[in-house]
Protein backbone atom coordinates (compact mmCIF):
# COMPACT_ATOMS: atom_id res chain seq x y z
CA UNK A 1 0.00 0.00 0.00
CA UNK A 2 1.46 3.37 -1.05
CA UNK A 3 1.72 5.97 1.65
CA UNK A 4 -1.08 8.50 1.80
CA UNK A 5 0.03 12.13 1.45
CA UNK A 6 -1.44 14.21 4.26
CA UNK A 7 -1.29 17.94 4.92
CA UNK A 8 -2.63 20.16 7.68
CA UNK A 9 -3.90 23.71 7.18
CA UNK A 10 -5.29 26.22 9.61
CA UNK A 11 -7.83 29.00 9.44
CA UNK A 12 -9.64 30.79 12.28
CA UNK A 13 -8.62 28.64 15.22
CA UNK A 14 -6.27 28.26 18.16
CA UNK A 15 -4.38 25.48 16.36
CA UNK A 16 -4.97 23.37 19.42
CA UNK A 17 -6.21 20.47 17.32
CA UNK A 18 -2.86 20.36 15.53
CA UNK A 19 -1.06 20.63 18.86
CA UNK A 20 -3.21 17.74 20.04
CA UNK A 21 -1.69 15.67 17.22
CA UNK A 22 1.75 16.18 18.64
CA UNK A 23 0.57 14.72 21.95
CA UNK A 24 -0.13 11.46 20.22
CA UNK A 25 1.25 8.19 21.39
CA UNK A 26 1.53 4.75 19.88
CA UNK A 27 -1.46 4.52 17.52
CA UNK A 28 -0.38 7.62 15.64
CA UNK A 29 3.16 6.39 15.23
CA UNK A 30 1.70 3.18 13.82
CA UNK A 31 -0.40 5.24 11.46
CA UNK A 32 2.83 6.76 10.13
CA UNK A 33 3.46 3.41 8.43
CA UNK A 34 0.68 4.39 6.05
CA UNK A 35 0.90 8.17 6.05
CA UNK A 36 3.39 10.69 4.69
CA UNK A 37 3.10 14.16 6.19
CA UNK A 38 3.80 16.77 3.51
CA UNK A 39 2.74 19.98 5.23
CA UNK A 40 2.12 20.62 8.91
CA UNK A 41 3.41 23.90 10.22
CA UNK A 42 3.25 22.92 13.88
CA UNK A 43 5.94 20.29 13.34
CA UNK A 44 7.79 21.02 10.09
CA UNK A 45 8.80 23.92 7.81
CA UNK A 46 8.18 22.24 4.44
CA UNK A 47 5.05 23.14 2.52
CA UNK A 48 3.60 21.76 -0.69
CA UNK A 49 1.76 22.94 -3.79
CA UNK A 50 1.45 19.38 -5.05
CA UNK A 51 -1.70 17.25 -4.96
CA UNK A 52 -2.55 15.86 -1.52
CA UNK A 53 -4.46 12.71 -0.67
CA UNK A 54 -5.95 14.00 2.56
CA UNK A 55 -6.16 17.65 3.57
CA UNK A 56 -6.95 18.26 7.24
CA UNK A 57 -8.31 21.74 7.70
CA UNK A 58 -8.44 23.29 11.12
CA UNK A 59 -10.37 26.45 11.92
CA UNK A 60 -13.59 28.09 10.92
CA UNK A 61 -14.29 30.08 7.79
CA UNK A 62 -14.70 33.59 9.14
CA UNK A 63 -13.12 35.88 6.53
CA UNK A 64 -14.17 36.04 2.90
CA UNK A 65 -10.52 36.40 1.86
CA UNK A 66 -9.88 32.86 3.12
CA UNK A 67 -12.16 31.41 0.48
CA UNK A 68 -9.55 31.37 -2.29
CA UNK A 69 -7.05 29.47 -0.14
CA UNK A 70 -9.72 26.97 0.88
CA UNK A 71 -10.65 26.48 -2.75
CA UNK A 72 -7.06 25.88 -3.74
CA UNK A 73 -6.71 23.24 -1.04
CA UNK A 74 -9.93 21.62 -2.21
CA UNK A 75 -8.68 21.53 -5.79
CA UNK A 76 -5.56 19.60 -5.00
CA UNK A 77 -6.91 17.36 -2.24
CA UNK A 78 -8.50 13.97 -2.76
CA UNK A 79 -10.27 14.03 0.57
CA UNK A 80 -10.94 17.11 2.65
CA UNK A 81 -11.44 16.51 6.34
CA UNK A 82 -12.71 19.21 8.67
CA UNK A 83 -10.29 18.89 11.54
CA UNK A 84 -11.75 19.82 14.90
CA UNK A 85 -14.78 21.72 16.07
CA UNK A 86 -14.09 25.09 14.43
CA UNK A 87 -13.74 23.59 10.97
CA UNK A 88 -16.58 21.14 11.44
CA UNK A 89 -19.20 23.39 12.99
CA UNK A 90 -17.80 26.90 13.36
CA UNK A 91 -17.01 25.83 16.89
CA UNK A 92 -16.39 28.25 19.71
CA UNK A 93 -15.69 31.03 17.21
CA UNK A 94 -19.38 31.13 16.45
CA UNK A 95 -19.93 32.37 19.98
CA UNK A 96 -19.81 35.89 18.53
CA UNK A 97 -22.19 35.22 15.68
CA UNK A 98 -25.18 36.88 17.32
CA UNK A 99 -23.17 39.97 18.24
CA UNK A 100 -22.30 43.12 16.39
CA UNK A 101 -18.74 43.10 14.98
CA UNK A 102 -17.69 46.37 16.63
CA UNK A 103 -18.91 45.05 19.97
CA UNK A 104 -17.03 41.79 19.93
CA UNK A 105 -13.88 43.35 18.52
CA UNK A 106 -13.85 45.94 21.29
CA UNK A 107 -14.67 43.35 23.89
CA UNK A 108 -11.78 41.10 22.84
CA UNK A 109 -9.11 43.49 21.54
CA UNK A 110 -9.84 46.74 23.36
CA UNK A 111 -7.72 49.59 21.94
CA UNK A 112 -6.29 47.38 19.20
CA UNK A 113 -9.69 46.53 17.81
CA UNK A 114 -9.30 48.72 14.74
CA UNK A 115 -6.56 46.60 13.17
CA UNK A 116 -7.95 45.64 9.73
CA UNK A 117 -7.17 41.93 9.90
CA UNK A 118 -9.58 41.64 12.82
CA UNK A 119 -12.58 42.29 10.60
CA UNK A 120 -14.50 39.06 10.38
CA UNK A 121 -17.84 37.79 9.26
CA UNK A 122 -19.85 35.12 11.04
CA UNK A 123 -17.72 32.12 11.97
CA UNK A 124 -18.92 29.24 9.82
CA UNK A 125 -17.80 25.67 9.24
CA UNK A 126 -15.46 25.34 6.25
CA UNK A 127 -18.27 23.52 4.49
CA UNK A 128 -19.75 27.01 4.04
CA UNK A 129 -16.92 27.67 1.56
CA UNK A 130 -15.94 24.31 0.05
CA UNK A 131 -17.16 20.73 -0.17
CA UNK A 132 -16.04 18.78 2.88
CA UNK A 133 -15.91 14.98 2.77
CA UNK A 134 -15.93 14.23 6.46
CA UNK A 135 -15.21 15.67 9.87
CA UNK A 136 -13.09 14.72 12.83
CA UNK A 137 -14.98 16.56 15.45
CA UNK A 138 -14.42 17.96 18.92
CA UNK A 139 -12.60 20.69 20.82
CA UNK A 140 -9.94 19.54 20.61
CA UNK A 141 -10.55 16.90 17.98
CA UNK A 142 -10.69 13.40 19.39
CA UNK A 143 -7.43 11.53 18.94
CA UNK A 144 -9.10 8.14 18.99
CA UNK A 145 -11.56 9.24 16.38
CA UNK A 146 -8.73 10.70 14.30
CA UNK A 147 -6.96 7.35 14.22
CA UNK A 148 -10.20 5.48 13.53
CA UNK A 149 -11.36 7.74 10.70
CA UNK A 150 -7.96 8.07 9.05
CA UNK A 151 -7.49 4.31 9.24
CA UNK A 152 -10.76 3.81 7.37
CA UNK A 153 -9.90 6.49 4.79
CA UNK A 154 -6.51 5.02 3.97
CA UNK A 155 -8.30 1.74 3.30
CA UNK A 156 -10.39 3.54 0.71
CA UNK A 157 -13.56 3.99 2.71
CA UNK A 158 -15.26 7.10 1.39
CA UNK A 159 -18.11 7.24 3.87
CA UNK A 160 -16.77 6.43 7.30
CA UNK A 161 -19.47 5.56 9.79
CA UNK A 162 -19.80 8.20 12.46
CA UNK A 163 -22.57 8.20 15.03
CA UNK A 164 -25.55 10.48 14.63
CA UNK A 165 -26.80 9.81 18.16
CA UNK A 166 -26.18 11.96 21.23
CA UNK A 167 -23.51 11.68 23.92
CA UNK A 168 -26.02 10.08 26.34
CA UNK A 169 -25.58 6.87 24.36
CA UNK A 170 -21.85 6.79 24.97
CA UNK A 171 -22.28 7.55 28.68
CA UNK A 172 -24.69 4.64 28.96
CA UNK A 173 -22.43 2.28 27.05
CA UNK A 174 -19.58 2.99 29.45
CA UNK A 175 -21.95 3.09 32.43
CA UNK A 176 -21.15 6.62 33.49
CA UNK A 177 -23.48 7.89 36.19
CA UNK A 178 -25.51 10.68 34.59
CA UNK A 179 -24.44 14.23 35.52
CA UNK A 180 -28.06 15.03 36.29
CA UNK A 181 -28.18 12.19 38.80
CA UNK A 182 -25.18 13.78 40.47
CA UNK A 183 -27.07 17.09 40.64
CA UNK A 184 -25.14 18.67 37.78
CA UNK A 185 -26.18 19.86 34.31
CA UNK A 186 -25.05 18.49 30.93
CA UNK A 187 -25.67 19.05 27.21
CA UNK A 188 -25.24 15.35 26.49
CA UNK A 189 -28.83 14.80 25.34
CA UNK A 190 -28.39 17.09 22.32
CA UNK A 191 -24.63 16.79 21.82
CA UNK A 192 -23.29 14.77 18.90
CA UNK A 193 -21.44 11.68 20.09
CA UNK A 194 -18.33 10.05 18.67
CA UNK A 195 -15.93 11.22 21.35
CA UNK A 196 -16.67 8.30 23.67
CA UNK A 197 -18.04 10.68 26.32
CA UNK A 198 -14.81 11.23 28.28
CA UNK A 199 -15.94 14.41 30.04
CA UNK A 200 -18.97 13.09 31.98
CA UNK A 201 -16.89 10.03 32.89
CA UNK A 202 -14.48 12.44 34.56
CA UNK A 203 -17.32 14.26 36.29
CA UNK A 204 -17.43 17.18 33.85
CA UNK A 205 -20.65 18.13 32.04
CA UNK A 206 -20.72 17.76 28.27
CA UNK A 207 -20.55 21.15 26.55
CA UNK A 208 -21.47 19.75 23.13
CA UNK A 209 -18.12 20.68 21.61
CA UNK A 210 -18.85 18.44 18.63
CA UNK A 211 -22.06 20.24 17.77
CA UNK A 212 -25.61 19.06 18.05
CA UNK A 213 -27.30 15.98 16.73
CA UNK A 214 -29.63 16.40 13.78
CA UNK A 215 -33.09 17.27 15.02
CA UNK A 216 -31.80 18.13 18.51
CA UNK A 217 -34.68 18.82 20.89
CA UNK A 218 -33.47 22.25 21.97
CA UNK A 219 -36.69 23.23 23.69
CA UNK A 220 -36.59 20.17 25.85
CA UNK A 221 -32.92 20.83 26.60
CA UNK A 222 -33.66 24.35 27.84
CA UNK A 223 -36.42 22.96 30.03
CA UNK A 224 -34.15 20.28 31.51
CA UNK A 225 -31.32 22.76 32.11
CA UNK A 226 -33.71 24.83 34.19
CA UNK A 227 -35.73 22.14 35.93
CA UNK A 228 -33.00 19.58 36.58
CA UNK A 229 -29.86 21.63 36.08
CA UNK A 230 -30.95 24.55 38.24
CA UNK A 231 -30.17 27.21 35.61
CA UNK A 232 -31.97 30.49 35.13
CA UNK A 233 -34.04 30.76 31.98
CA UNK A 234 -31.52 33.15 30.44
CA UNK A 235 -28.56 30.92 31.20
CA UNK A 236 -30.37 27.87 29.91
CA UNK A 237 -31.18 29.65 26.66
CA UNK A 238 -27.64 30.99 26.23
CA UNK A 239 -25.97 27.72 27.15
CA UNK A 240 -25.86 26.47 23.59
CA UNK A 241 -24.02 29.54 22.32
CA UNK A 242 -20.64 28.28 23.45
CA UNK A 243 -19.92 25.49 20.98
CA UNK A 244 -23.17 25.13 19.10
CA UNK A 245 -24.19 28.64 18.12
CA UNK A 246 -24.55 27.62 14.48
CA UNK A 247 -27.05 24.91 15.44
CA UNK A 248 -29.39 27.21 17.32
CA UNK A 249 -32.79 27.87 15.89
CA UNK A 250 -31.92 31.59 15.91
CA UNK A 251 -28.58 31.10 14.11
Amino acid at each position, binding site marked *: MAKVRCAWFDFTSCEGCQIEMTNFGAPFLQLLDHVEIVEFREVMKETTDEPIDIAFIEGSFSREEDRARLESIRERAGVVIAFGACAATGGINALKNHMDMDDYKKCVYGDDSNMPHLDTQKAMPISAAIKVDMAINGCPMSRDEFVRIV*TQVIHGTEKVYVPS*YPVCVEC*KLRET*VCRYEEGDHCLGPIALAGCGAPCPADGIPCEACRGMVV*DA*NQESMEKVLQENGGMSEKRAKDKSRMFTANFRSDA
Partner: protein
Amino acid sequence: MSGYYIPSEGLQSFAQSLMAKMPVVAPVAKGKRFIFDQLGDVAELRLDYDTTVLPPKKVFFPPKQDLLEFDEGKATSCLDPQAKVLLGVHPYDIKAISMTDKLFSDNYADSNYLANREVAVIIGSNVQTPYERAFYGSIAQDLELVGHDAFLTKISDGYVLDVVTEKGEKLIADLGLADASAEQTSEAEGVNAKADEDCPVKLPFAAGDVSEKVRNSFKSEIWDELSKDCFSCGSCNLVCPTCYCFDVQDEWGLGASNGKRYRRWDGCLSSEFSEVSVQGGSENFRENRAERYRHRFMRKTAYLNDKLGAPACVGCGRCAGACTADIADPVNTITRIMES
Protein backbone atom coordinates in the same frame (compact mmCIF):
# COMPACT_ATOMS: atom_id res chain seq x y z
CA MET B 1 -32.32 -28.63 45.19
CA SER B 2 -30.72 -27.63 48.47
CA GLY B 3 -30.63 -24.70 50.87
CA TYR B 4 -27.57 -23.44 52.71
CA TYR B 5 -27.03 -20.87 55.39
CA ILE B 6 -24.39 -18.16 55.26
CA PRO B 7 -24.07 -15.97 58.34
CA SER B 8 -23.91 -12.20 57.70
CA GLU B 9 -20.22 -12.06 58.54
CA GLY B 10 -19.59 -15.01 56.24
CA LEU B 11 -20.83 -13.33 53.05
CA GLN B 12 -17.49 -11.84 52.11
CA SER B 13 -15.61 -15.08 52.61
CA PHE B 14 -18.29 -16.82 50.53
CA ALA B 15 -17.72 -14.30 47.72
CA GLN B 16 -13.98 -14.61 48.20
CA SER B 17 -14.12 -18.36 47.76
CA LEU B 18 -16.08 -17.90 44.54
CA MET B 19 -13.47 -15.40 43.35
CA ALA B 20 -10.83 -18.04 43.92
CA LYS B 21 -12.62 -20.22 41.37
CA MET B 22 -13.47 -17.72 38.66
CA PRO B 23 -14.11 -14.00 38.13
CA VAL B 24 -17.13 -12.76 40.07
CA VAL B 25 -19.25 -9.97 38.62
CA ALA B 26 -21.41 -8.32 41.25
CA PRO B 27 -23.00 -5.00 42.20
CA VAL B 28 -20.56 -2.35 43.42
CA ALA B 29 -21.03 1.37 44.11
CA LYS B 30 -20.26 3.97 41.44
CA GLY B 31 -20.94 7.60 42.38
CA LYS B 32 -24.50 7.74 43.62
CA ARG B 33 -25.40 4.59 41.73
CA PHE B 34 -24.34 0.97 41.41
CA ILE B 35 -22.97 -1.07 38.55
CA PHE B 36 -22.23 -4.73 37.93
CA ASP B 37 -18.47 -5.01 37.84
CA GLN B 38 -15.83 -7.65 38.31
CA LEU B 39 -15.02 -7.81 42.02
CA GLY B 40 -11.43 -6.91 42.76
CA ASP B 41 -11.82 -6.41 46.47
CA VAL B 42 -14.59 -8.40 48.08
CA ALA B 43 -15.36 -5.44 50.36
CA GLU B 44 -16.81 -3.68 47.28
CA LEU B 45 -19.69 -6.15 47.08
CA ARG B 46 -22.98 -4.35 47.69
CA LEU B 47 -25.91 -6.73 47.88
CA ASP B 48 -27.91 -3.86 49.38
CA TYR B 49 -27.86 -2.06 45.98
CA ASP B 50 -31.13 -0.70 44.66
CA THR B 51 -30.48 -1.25 40.99
CA THR B 52 -27.56 -0.88 38.58
CA VAL B 53 -27.07 1.67 35.79
CA LEU B 54 -26.88 -1.11 33.18
CA PRO B 55 -28.55 -4.48 33.58
CA PRO B 56 -26.45 -7.64 33.95
CA LYS B 57 -27.13 -8.69 30.34
CA LYS B 58 -23.91 -6.83 29.59
CA VAL B 59 -22.00 -9.83 30.91
CA PHE B 60 -23.25 -12.01 28.01
CA PHE B 61 -24.01 -9.28 25.53
CA PRO B 62 -21.39 -6.55 26.05
CA PRO B 63 -22.24 -2.98 24.96
CA LYS B 64 -19.60 -3.42 22.27
CA GLN B 65 -18.69 -6.93 21.21
CA ASP B 66 -16.31 -8.07 18.51
CA LEU B 67 -18.02 -10.56 16.19
CA LEU B 68 -15.21 -11.40 13.84
CA GLU B 69 -11.67 -10.46 13.03
CA PHE B 70 -10.28 -10.49 9.55
CA ASP B 71 -6.93 -10.30 7.89
CA GLU B 72 -6.03 -10.66 4.24
CA GLY B 73 -9.63 -11.38 3.42
CA LYS B 74 -10.07 -14.24 5.89
CA ALA B 75 -12.55 -13.86 8.72
CA THR B 76 -12.53 -15.74 11.99
CA SER B 77 -15.06 -15.78 14.76
CA CYS B 78 -14.26 -13.90 17.98
CA LEU B 79 -16.10 -16.20 20.37
CA ASP B 80 -14.11 -16.42 23.56
CA PRO B 81 -16.41 -17.36 26.44
CA GLN B 82 -14.96 -16.81 29.90
CA ALA B 83 -16.55 -18.61 32.82
CA LYS B 84 -17.87 -16.18 35.42
CA VAL B 85 -20.09 -15.99 38.44
CA LEU B 86 -22.75 -13.34 38.14
CA LEU B 87 -23.61 -12.65 41.75
CA GLY B 88 -26.46 -10.64 43.23
CA VAL B 89 -28.90 -10.53 40.32
CA HIS B 90 -32.33 -9.28 41.38
CA PRO B 91 -35.39 -11.35 40.41
CA TYR B 92 -36.59 -8.84 37.79
CA ASP B 93 -33.20 -9.08 36.09
CA ILE B 94 -33.29 -12.88 36.25
CA LYS B 95 -36.62 -12.75 34.42
CA ALA B 96 -35.12 -10.39 31.86
CA ILE B 97 -32.15 -12.71 31.34
CA SER B 98 -34.52 -15.60 30.71
CA MET B 99 -36.17 -13.40 28.06
CA THR B 100 -32.92 -12.54 26.30
CA ASP B 101 -31.91 -16.21 26.55
CA LYS B 102 -35.02 -17.06 24.61
CA LEU B 103 -34.71 -14.24 22.11
CA PHE B 104 -31.10 -15.09 21.29
CA SER B 105 -31.82 -18.84 21.08
CA ASP B 106 -35.03 -18.84 19.06
CA ASN B 107 -34.85 -19.51 15.31
CA TYR B 108 -31.25 -18.69 14.64
CA ALA B 109 -29.27 -19.34 17.81
CA ASP B 110 -26.76 -16.56 18.36
CA SER B 111 -23.61 -18.08 19.76
CA ASN B 112 -22.11 -14.65 20.34
CA TYR B 113 -24.54 -14.34 23.25
CA LEU B 114 -25.17 -17.96 24.11
CA ALA B 115 -21.52 -18.98 24.47
CA ASN B 116 -21.02 -16.32 27.14
CA ARG B 117 -24.32 -17.18 28.75
CA GLU B 118 -23.62 -20.90 28.96
CA VAL B 119 -20.42 -20.51 30.94
CA ALA B 120 -21.91 -18.08 33.44
CA VAL B 121 -23.21 -19.18 36.82
CA ILE B 122 -25.95 -16.87 38.07
CA ILE B 123 -26.54 -16.36 41.76
CA GLY B 124 -29.61 -14.23 42.32
CA SER B 125 -30.35 -12.08 45.30
CA ASN B 126 -33.50 -10.70 46.83
CA VAL B 127 -34.02 -6.95 46.69
CA GLN B 128 -32.85 -5.47 49.95
CA THR B 129 -33.34 -1.85 48.89
CA PRO B 130 -35.97 -1.27 46.22
CA TYR B 131 -35.13 1.28 43.52
CA GLU B 132 -37.45 4.26 43.85
CA ARG B 133 -38.72 3.95 40.26
CA ALA B 134 -39.16 0.16 40.31
CA PHE B 135 -42.53 -1.48 39.64
CA TYR B 136 -41.49 -5.14 39.37
CA GLY B 137 -44.14 -6.02 41.93
CA SER B 138 -46.90 -5.44 39.43
CA ILE B 139 -45.58 -6.59 36.03
CA ALA B 140 -44.35 -9.89 34.57
CA GLN B 141 -45.92 -11.63 37.54
CA ASP B 142 -46.90 -14.71 35.54
CA LEU B 143 -43.36 -15.19 34.39
CA GLU B 144 -41.61 -17.99 36.21
CA LEU B 145 -38.38 -17.08 37.96
CA VAL B 146 -35.96 -19.33 36.09
CA GLY B 147 -32.53 -19.11 34.54
CA HIS B 148 -30.48 -18.61 37.69
CA ASP B 149 -28.43 -21.33 39.34
CA ALA B 150 -28.75 -20.23 42.93
CA PHE B 151 -30.48 -17.51 44.91
CA LEU B 152 -29.41 -15.63 48.02
CA THR B 153 -32.06 -14.34 50.37
CA LYS B 154 -31.20 -11.96 53.19
CA ILE B 155 -32.72 -13.05 56.48
CA SER B 156 -32.37 -11.50 59.91
CA ASP B 157 -28.98 -12.96 60.77
CA GLY B 158 -27.50 -13.89 57.44
CA TYR B 159 -28.41 -15.36 54.07
CA VAL B 160 -30.13 -18.45 52.80
CA LEU B 161 -28.57 -19.75 49.59
CA ASP B 162 -30.96 -21.80 47.51
CA VAL B 163 -29.15 -23.80 44.89
CA VAL B 164 -31.46 -24.71 42.05
CA THR B 165 -29.29 -26.23 39.31
CA GLU B 166 -26.49 -28.72 39.03
CA LYS B 167 -24.25 -25.98 37.74
CA GLY B 168 -24.92 -24.09 40.97
CA GLU B 169 -24.42 -27.18 43.08
CA LYS B 170 -21.10 -27.85 41.39
CA LEU B 171 -19.92 -24.31 42.06
CA ILE B 172 -20.52 -24.42 45.81
CA ALA B 173 -20.00 -28.14 46.44
CA ASP B 174 -16.57 -27.79 48.04
CA LEU B 175 -17.26 -24.59 50.01
CA GLY B 176 -18.40 -26.44 53.09
CA LEU B 177 -21.55 -24.36 53.52
CA ALA B 178 -23.87 -25.27 56.37
CA ASP B 179 -27.36 -26.48 55.57
CA ALA B 180 -30.10 -23.97 56.25
CA SER B 181 -32.38 -24.87 59.13
CA ALA B 182 -36.12 -25.27 58.57
CA GLU B 183 -36.57 -22.00 60.41
CA GLN B 184 -34.09 -20.15 58.20
CA THR B 185 -35.60 -21.61 55.08
CA SER B 186 -39.05 -20.57 56.12
CA GLU B 187 -37.87 -17.06 57.00
CA ALA B 188 -36.33 -16.77 53.53
CA GLU B 189 -39.55 -17.96 51.92
CA GLY B 190 -41.40 -15.33 53.88
CA VAL B 191 -39.00 -12.60 52.71
CA ASN B 192 -39.39 -13.63 49.07
CA ALA B 193 -43.17 -14.02 49.35
CA LYS B 194 -43.61 -10.41 50.39
CA ALA B 195 -40.87 -8.98 48.15
CA ASP B 196 -43.31 -7.62 45.61
CA GLU B 197 -45.26 -5.79 48.30
CA ASP B 198 -42.22 -3.65 49.07
CA CYS B 199 -41.91 -2.54 45.47
CA PRO B 200 -42.39 1.23 45.57
CA VAL B 201 -44.38 1.82 42.37
CA LYS B 202 -47.46 -0.06 41.20
CA LEU B 203 -48.70 -0.49 37.66
CA PRO B 204 -52.40 -1.05 38.30
CA PHE B 205 -53.32 -2.72 34.99
CA ALA B 206 -53.32 -6.28 33.68
CA ALA B 207 -50.80 -7.03 30.91
CA GLY B 208 -53.51 -8.20 28.51
CA ASP B 209 -55.52 -5.01 28.92
CA VAL B 210 -52.41 -2.90 28.48
CA SER B 211 -51.36 -4.73 25.35
CA GLU B 212 -54.77 -4.31 23.76
CA LYS B 213 -55.23 -0.69 24.69
CA VAL B 214 -51.71 0.34 23.66
CA ARG B 215 -52.09 -1.41 20.30
CA ASN B 216 -55.43 0.25 19.76
CA SER B 217 -53.89 3.62 20.54
CA PHE B 218 -51.47 3.31 17.62
CA LYS B 219 -53.05 6.17 15.69
CA SER B 220 -53.73 8.30 18.77
CA GLU B 221 -52.24 11.76 18.94
CA ILE B 222 -51.20 11.04 22.49
CA TRP B 223 -47.80 9.84 21.26
CA ASP B 224 -46.94 13.33 19.99
CA GLU B 225 -47.73 14.76 23.35
CA LEU B 226 -45.95 12.05 25.35
CA SER B 227 -42.81 12.29 23.24
CA LYS B 228 -42.65 16.07 22.98
CA ASP B 229 -39.60 16.31 25.25
CA CYS B 230 -37.87 13.20 23.89
CA PHE B 231 -34.20 13.66 22.98
CA SER B 232 -34.09 10.48 20.87
CA CYS B 233 -31.06 9.58 22.95
CA GLY B 234 -32.11 5.99 23.46
CA SER B 235 -31.09 5.94 27.13
CA CYS B 236 -34.35 4.10 27.88
CA ASN B 237 -33.32 1.40 25.40
CA LEU B 238 -29.75 1.11 26.55
CA VAL B 239 -30.52 0.61 30.24
CA CYS B 240 -33.37 -1.81 29.53
CA PRO B 241 -32.68 -5.42 30.54
CA THR B 242 -34.94 -6.79 27.80
CA CYS B 243 -33.75 -4.59 24.94
CA TYR B 244 -31.35 -6.46 22.71
CA CYS B 245 -31.15 -4.51 19.46
CA PHE B 246 -27.71 -3.90 18.05
CA ASP B 247 -25.90 -2.24 15.20
CA VAL B 248 -23.04 -3.89 13.33
CA GLN B 249 -20.03 -2.02 11.97
CA ASP B 250 -16.75 -2.94 10.32
CA GLU B 251 -13.54 -1.24 11.22
CA TRP B 252 -10.11 -1.46 9.64
CA GLY B 253 -7.18 -1.85 11.98
CA LEU B 254 -3.78 -0.23 11.76
CA GLY B 255 -2.23 -3.09 9.84
CA ALA B 256 -2.32 -3.29 6.06
CA SER B 257 -5.31 -5.60 5.74
CA ASN B 258 -6.69 -6.40 9.18
CA GLY B 259 -9.79 -5.28 10.97
CA LYS B 260 -12.83 -6.41 12.82
CA ARG B 261 -16.59 -6.45 12.72
CA TYR B 262 -18.30 -5.57 15.98
CA ARG B 263 -21.77 -5.03 17.29
CA ARG B 264 -22.88 -2.28 19.60
CA TRP B 265 -26.10 -1.86 21.55
CA ASP B 266 -28.53 0.16 19.54
CA GLY B 267 -31.90 1.58 20.43
CA CYS B 268 -35.08 2.15 18.45
CA LEU B 269 -35.36 5.67 19.84
CA SER B 270 -32.29 6.85 17.91
CA SER B 271 -33.06 8.55 14.64
CA GLU B 272 -30.67 6.41 12.57
CA PHE B 273 -32.21 3.15 13.80
CA SER B 274 -34.67 2.61 10.95
CA GLU B 275 -32.80 4.49 8.28
CA VAL B 276 -31.74 2.87 5.04
CA SER B 277 -29.49 4.31 2.36
CA VAL B 278 -31.28 4.82 -0.89
CA GLN B 279 -30.28 6.43 -4.12
CA GLY B 280 -29.56 10.08 -3.46
CA GLY B 281 -29.91 9.94 0.30
CA SER B 282 -31.76 7.95 2.89
CA GLU B 283 -35.21 6.77 3.80
CA ASN B 284 -36.27 6.57 7.44
CA PHE B 285 -39.08 4.18 8.30
CA ARG B 286 -39.65 5.95 11.63
CA GLU B 287 -38.78 9.50 10.90
CA ASN B 288 -40.16 11.45 13.85
CA ARG B 289 -39.64 11.01 17.55
CA ALA B 290 -43.28 10.22 18.27
CA GLU B 291 -43.11 7.18 15.95
CA ARG B 292 -39.97 5.95 17.65
CA TYR B 293 -41.30 6.58 21.14
CA ARG B 294 -44.46 4.70 20.22
CA HIS B 295 -42.47 1.82 18.77
CA ARG B 296 -40.68 1.32 22.07
CA PHE B 297 -43.93 1.13 24.01
CA MET B 298 -45.48 -1.17 21.42
CA ARG B 299 -42.48 -3.41 21.74
CA LYS B 300 -42.44 -3.37 25.52
CA THR B 301 -46.17 -3.93 25.98
CA ALA B 302 -47.43 -5.75 22.92
CA TYR B 303 -45.18 -6.89 20.05
CA LEU B 304 -43.17 -9.53 21.88
CA ASN B 305 -45.84 -10.83 24.25
CA ASP B 306 -46.65 -13.92 22.23
CA LYS B 307 -43.01 -14.83 21.88
CA LEU B 308 -42.17 -14.25 25.55
CA GLY B 309 -45.38 -15.18 27.30
CA ALA B 310 -45.28 -11.79 29.00
CA PRO B 311 -44.65 -8.17 28.10
CA ALA B 312 -41.00 -7.37 27.41
CA CYS B 313 -40.76 -5.37 30.61
CA VAL B 314 -39.83 -6.59 34.08
CA GLY B 315 -40.44 -3.38 36.02
CA CYS B 316 -36.85 -2.58 36.96
CA GLY B 317 -37.55 1.14 36.55
CA ARG B 318 -34.15 1.85 34.99
CA CYS B 319 -35.64 3.60 31.96
CA ALA B 320 -37.66 5.88 34.20
CA GLY B 321 -34.54 6.93 36.06
CA ALA B 322 -32.30 7.16 33.00
CA CYS B 323 -34.55 9.47 31.03
CA THR B 324 -33.30 13.01 31.51
CA ALA B 325 -36.59 14.49 30.35
CA ASP B 326 -38.43 11.95 32.53
CA ILE B 327 -40.86 10.84 29.85
CA ALA B 328 -39.85 7.19 29.60
CA ASP B 329 -41.43 5.77 32.76
CA PRO B 330 -43.68 2.91 31.59
CA VAL B 331 -45.94 3.40 34.60
CA ASN B 332 -46.66 7.02 33.70
CA THR B 333 -47.01 6.38 29.99
CA ILE B 334 -49.13 3.27 30.31
CA THR B 335 -51.35 5.00 32.84
CA ARG B 336 -51.81 7.95 30.50
CA ILE B 337 -52.75 5.63 27.66
CA MET B 338 -55.07 3.50 29.77
CA GLU B 339 -56.85 6.60 30.94
CA SER B 340 -57.06 8.17 27.49
